[in-house]
């Protein structure tokens, strides 16, 4: 039984539909990350799960119980907000105890739970302080502590790190990961627009765009087998290079393409439809590109526009004829190439991605068809 089941969730504000029928099955104890560009509906989806927004259509089940009409406090959820949302007039202790006091828990139980949450989050010295006397990181920990005190089945985070500075963000991210490990039965749903947070924290990532789910899967699956152009370009930094290509030959196990700028590539895809003569898009990540050796087939070649040496890697921006933006290659170590010199790049066949005219990954489509 899935702990959290979303079926055809639709959310509209007046005439404007912002979620268009979202289906999701989330298992107990999973760490799920919603990721997508700003305004794609991540927060809205999270808030419908919390019950802060009523859904316009579809059904939401938590532990097999339909919660469409259940108020937030009875859904067994807790939420950590981007702005912390601490009650400014209450001490840290009272902030954490507020929910339990409303639930008429005994003083002793409240005290135990607050103390234990405080010790997990190293908040004991601050229990009598008001939020305004805490640093940003401490406030965020109080917000997490308040959520822990609710002893929720589902933990919801809405961009919890975006108000912290870079160093704290990494530290708090690691703390959240540890928290997740220490609560194996608690489902966590985490919203972010930062793909590094998504990659490092998630058991499974849900990529959203304009109110649609683009792909759901473990981070490495999204990285190695993006289902479409959007996911391919959204996951991974710097973003995947996309090159216009034309299919020249297709067999039962391979597709051969001519790449703009004069290169060629052969992509292993079993059972792809024969799209001979059709335009397709070839995708290759900057870190998968390398300088072609003697006699190796070049995938893309052009003049070096600029090289940025960062120490552990060198970024090459290569101007390719007929391609507007430079192709980016990320080579390990320091590579000394003169500006303007001709460069030939290639990659392993297994690291190439082909997308059909609709932007769908031909590999993923073909596998889906075979499975069916």
């Amino acid at each position, binding site marked *: 039984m899935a702990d959290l089941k979303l079926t055809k969730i639709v959310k509209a504000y007046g005439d404007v539909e912002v979620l268009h029928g979202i289906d999701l099955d989330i298992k107990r104890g999973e760490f799920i990350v919603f990721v997508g560009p700003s305004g794609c509906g991540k927060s809205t989806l999270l808030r419908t799960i*919390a*019950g*802060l927004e009523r859904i316009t259509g579809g059904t939401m089940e938590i532990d097999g119980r339909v919660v469409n009409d259940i*108020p*937030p*406090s*009875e859904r067994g*959820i*807790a*939420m950590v*907000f*981007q*702005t*912390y*949302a*601490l*009650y*400014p*007039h*209450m*001490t840290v202790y009272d902030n954490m105890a*507020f*929910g339990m006091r*409303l*639930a008429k828990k005994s003083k002793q139980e409240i005290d135990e739970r607050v103390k234990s949450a405080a010790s997990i989050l190293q908040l004991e010295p601050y229990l*009598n302080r008001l939020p305004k006397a805490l640093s940003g990181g401490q406030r965020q920990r109080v917000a997490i502590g*308040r959520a822990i005190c*609710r002893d929720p089945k589902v933990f919801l985070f809405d961009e919890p790190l975006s108000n912290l500075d870079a160093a704290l963000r990494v530290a708090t991210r690691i703390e959240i990961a540890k928290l997740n490990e220490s609560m194996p039965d608690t489902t966590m749903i985490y919203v972010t627009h930062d793909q590094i947070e998504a990659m490092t924290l998630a058991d499974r990532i849900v990529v959203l765009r304009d109110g649609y789910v683009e792909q759901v899967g473990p981070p490495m699956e999204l990285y190695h087998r993006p289902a479409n152009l959007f996911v391919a370009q959204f996951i991974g930094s710097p973003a995947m290079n996309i090159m216009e290509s034309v299919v020249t030959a297709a067999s039962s196990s391979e597709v051969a393409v001519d790449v703009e700028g004069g290169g060629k590539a052969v992509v292993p895809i079993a059972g792809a439809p024969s799209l001979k003569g059709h335009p397709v898009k070839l995708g290759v990540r900057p870190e998968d590109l390398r300088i072609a050796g003697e006699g190796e087939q070049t995938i893309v070649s052009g003049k070096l526009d600029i090289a940025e040496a960062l120490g552990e890697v060198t970024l090459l921006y290569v101007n390719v004829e007929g391609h507007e933006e430079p192709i980016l290659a990320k080579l390990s170590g320091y590579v000394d190439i003169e500006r303007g010199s001709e460069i030939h790049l290639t990659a392993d066949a297994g690291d190439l991605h082909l997308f059909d005219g609709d932007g769908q990954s031909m590999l993923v489509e073909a596998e889906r068809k075979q499975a069916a």
Partner: protein
Amino acid sequence: MNPALQGLLTIIVGVGGCVGYFYFSNQLLDRVIFPARGPNAGVNINRANQVRPWLFLFPAIFALGLYLAYPVVETLRLSLTDRVAGGGYDWVGLANYTQMFNEPKFWEAMRNNMLWLIVVPAAATAFGLLAAQLTDRIAWGNVAKSLIFMPMAISFVGASVIWKLVYDSRPAGQDQIGVLNAVWMAFEPGLWSTIVLRILPALLIVGFAAAVAYGAWLLAKPIIERDDRGPGMLAAGLRGAVALLFVWLIWESVSTLPGLLTSELPYGEPQNWLTISFWNNFFLMVVLIWIQTGFAMVILSAALRGIPEETVEAAIIDGAGPFDLFFRIKVPQIMGTILVVWTTITILVLKIFDIVFAMTNGQWETQVLANYMYDKLFRANDWGVGSAGAMVIMLLVTPILVWNVYNARKEMR
């Protein structure tokens, strides 16, 4: 000349004079006194910038000094002197004050002022808060807000005229043009009037007493429990004092209950509401509450909107119902603003004059300090006692004013 033209001219001259003062005095400072030229240019610029604030503040300081500080000193002097027949004056020390303290009318005014002080700010703030919360969430809230705010635009005297009509009475048998009497005449002995005139008010009083008791308990709790996170001695003493005041309020309100439930009511007789002593004070207070609720509502509604929506949502997730949300999340977050509104109205109430002057002129035991002062100064022509009254009002207002400014500045930070 036509008075309208005269007014226009005054505005033009006034505004033009102000603009002219700032512009030309600034020019004078920068071009003539400390010119930013020559060998001393840098020093001159610094000097000019040090002088500039005082230059610009001068008109305001001068006007305040002339129209505010000087009259205070002069009033103090007058309160210590007596007019001598044939011109001149005598120093009489505190004689005017002793005379005043021996007059029952003065103590009546003090008592009434205290009543006003307790009832009007509390009622206006409470109604304003209620209106702010209720109108924020409904579609026609803005229309309702405008209606509630409108009395603010009416002068106190205008409002008094309106309410005098509400309280008006005609002999029995004639049509009552006063709304209150018209309603009153509709009552007859029976079940309904018992409910409306005895049980409902009794419930209101019990509710009020309960609310005050809750407040007193909240105030006294940290002292009783010896909460070590609690405030220091001074704050504890203050809390204790206010709590005792609350206990007194509870006693005062509950002790009216027997009378309310048993007294004979003069059904069918039109009442002269403004002559019913003690209660007529409340009929006057209603006017000011009616006016000030709009003010409280506008300020508090802005404060309510300033509350971060997330804290409310977090409380909803924590399981807070509408009452918990309002009293435990929203109200504490705008407590500073509530205090500012409360003290602002308190100051206004201490100075209350127009409404009493226009409606009863202090008769039937409705005297207040400002009207008492006016009586002495301009009708009895006793400048000594009149000025002493003015000093008492000032002494009462000052601490609240200081506190108000302190709170307002804290809010702005």
